[in-house]
């Protein structure tokens, strides 16, 4: 997802008997659906895992501004331009809420950005694919924001208060993004033959990377089990992927577009779509830094950060001068 394969640092799930009294009290609160707030005691592994998860999510929002931002100056109408700019702006806002949520866990935004810039921190694999045509902007809104919503709606109920509240705000905007993306696809699918081909081509390229967003099967993963126990992960990756396929295939049909999967078919017995195997080799390559745009995305981010340094320093210096002057006046 926006946070893929988050490690928890644990090697097995503790039974309640193995837990210290503090740990047990903590787990009881989580089990009772009581939100954990920043000042409360929490296991170190919970805190660290949340920082990893929230910051990965934040980084994804920020890096995700690039593939979409790529079309802001080329959007085809004034209205589309305004909608896309507002969308990318929303993603910056999402990054901001999430960095703030992470800061409640005792890490600063600058530290997290340093981790991103150094290549140490991960972000969602999906944003390492290029946006080649206008239809890609439609496909991202429809599929990528759609997949994000799948994952983030349940996270509104997650155990950590600031994260859950950030999710509530973010989800509202993400569903708006998805509708706008679908609307772009609709216009293209009902448009000229060239536009329709553009829409199909975008679906062809974005379908499988979108399924990869949910991450590899984690049915056996101890990290996933631990995160679920802590209620910072609500559904398994496979569950969410299935839900996404079930929701999206009829939408593609409505557009008159073909999902690029010859194995895709309705399974009446299961009440779900069966679908083909995801190419996990490709996924691991992209996560390892070998996607089409990994280097470009990171370089662009580092450049903006470095070139903005003197501006941030000037703002700090000015604020300090102003405060000093105010003090002199007051004295």
């Amino acid at each position: 997802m926006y946070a893929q394969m988050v490690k928890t640092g644990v090697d097995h799930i503790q039974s309640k008997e193995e837990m210290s009294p503090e740990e047990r009290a903590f787990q009881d609160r989580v089990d009772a659906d009581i939100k954990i707030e920043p000042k409360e005691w929490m296991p170190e592994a919970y805190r660290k895992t949340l920082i990893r998860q929230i910051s990965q999510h934040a980084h994804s929002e920020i890096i995700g501004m690039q593939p979409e931002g790529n079309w802001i100056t080329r959007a085809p109408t004034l209205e589309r331009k305004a909608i896309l700019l507002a969308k990318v702006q929303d993603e910056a806002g999402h990054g901001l809420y999430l960095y703030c949520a992470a800061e409640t866990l005792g890490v600063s935004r600058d530290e997290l950005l340093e981790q991103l810039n150094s290549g140490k921190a991960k972000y969602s694999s999906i944003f390492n694919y290029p946006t080649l045509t206008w239809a890609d902007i439609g496909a991202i809104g429809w599929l990528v924001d759609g997949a994000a919503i799948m994952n983030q709606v349940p996270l509104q109920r997650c155990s950590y208060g600031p994260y859950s509240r950030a999710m509530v705000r973010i989800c509202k905007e993400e569903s708006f993004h998805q509708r706008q993306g679908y609307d772009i696809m609709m216009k293209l699918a009902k448009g000229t033959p060239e536009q329709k081909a553009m829409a199909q081509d975008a679906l062809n390229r974005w379908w499988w990377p979108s399924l990869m967003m949910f991450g590899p099967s984690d049915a056996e993963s101890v990290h996933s089990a631990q995160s679920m126990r802590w209620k910072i992960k609500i559904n398994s990756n496979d569950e969410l992927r299935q839900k996404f396929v079930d929701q999206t295939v009829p939408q593609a049909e409505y557009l008159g577009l073909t999902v690029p999967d010859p194995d895709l078919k309705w399974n009446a017995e299961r009440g779900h779509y069966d679908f083909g195997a995801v190419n996990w080799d490709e996924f691991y390559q992209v996560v390892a830094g070998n996607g089409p745009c990994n280097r470009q995305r990171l370089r662009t981010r580092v450049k903006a950060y470095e070139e903005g340094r003197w501006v941030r320093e000037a703002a700090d210096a000015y604020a300090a001068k102003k405060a000093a002057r105010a003090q002199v006046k007051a004295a």
Partner: protein
Amino acid sequence: MTGQDALFEYLLRLSDNALILGHRLSEWCGHSPALEEDLALSNVALDLIGQTQLWLSLAGEVEGKGRDADKLAYLRDARDFRNVLLVEQPNGDFALTMARQFFFDAWHYLLLRELKGSKDARIAEIAAKGLKEVTYHLERSRDWVLRLGDGTEESHRRMQTAIDDLWMYTGELFESDEVDQAMAREGIGADLAALHEPWLGLVRATAEEATLTLPQPGWAQRGGKRGIHSEHLGYILADLQFLQRAYPNATW
């Protein structure tokens, strides 16, 4: 030039300033010095795109040839654009963007304040709406001129350079030709020359507070209002108009 033609021309000037500057600002999204600035620059860009839509729709109505705002934005070539040279200047560093913004906002604010009282009710209405937005734009860009001018040595140097580089594009804002004069006479447009003193007053006071030096009045670059642009505009339009040009008659 008859009344309606002059009015059309006048409206294009208003809308093209907003369109081109909004476009320039939108180039920053995702590349600015901090997330807060990505948000703020996008807000200003969105306001300007909104103003463009209003001005251009009215221009299309006045022209009466069935061109809507998108046709006017996406299917005119550079020689038919009427924005001032200042707004098409490349973003440069953050200081240049903010200096450009401040020079423009200060003028835009004074202009819309006049146009709010236009005899043409449609213009007055758009100006009143825009004025609220531009009041905030001006506050923000002025604030950045202060912060950068009076921030660090480096930011001061960069802001001073930006002001020196852009100064020659500010003169055009206050020059009136037959179109401006006709509109001002009829009480539809503003007397541009009369905006110069209040503009200078605001810019001087800001520069002083920001420890910056304003250049001496000198030769003004001009031509944008007549469609004689810098080389930069063609590239803006190549981006802006790409899809409409590559896929004629498609709807999006």
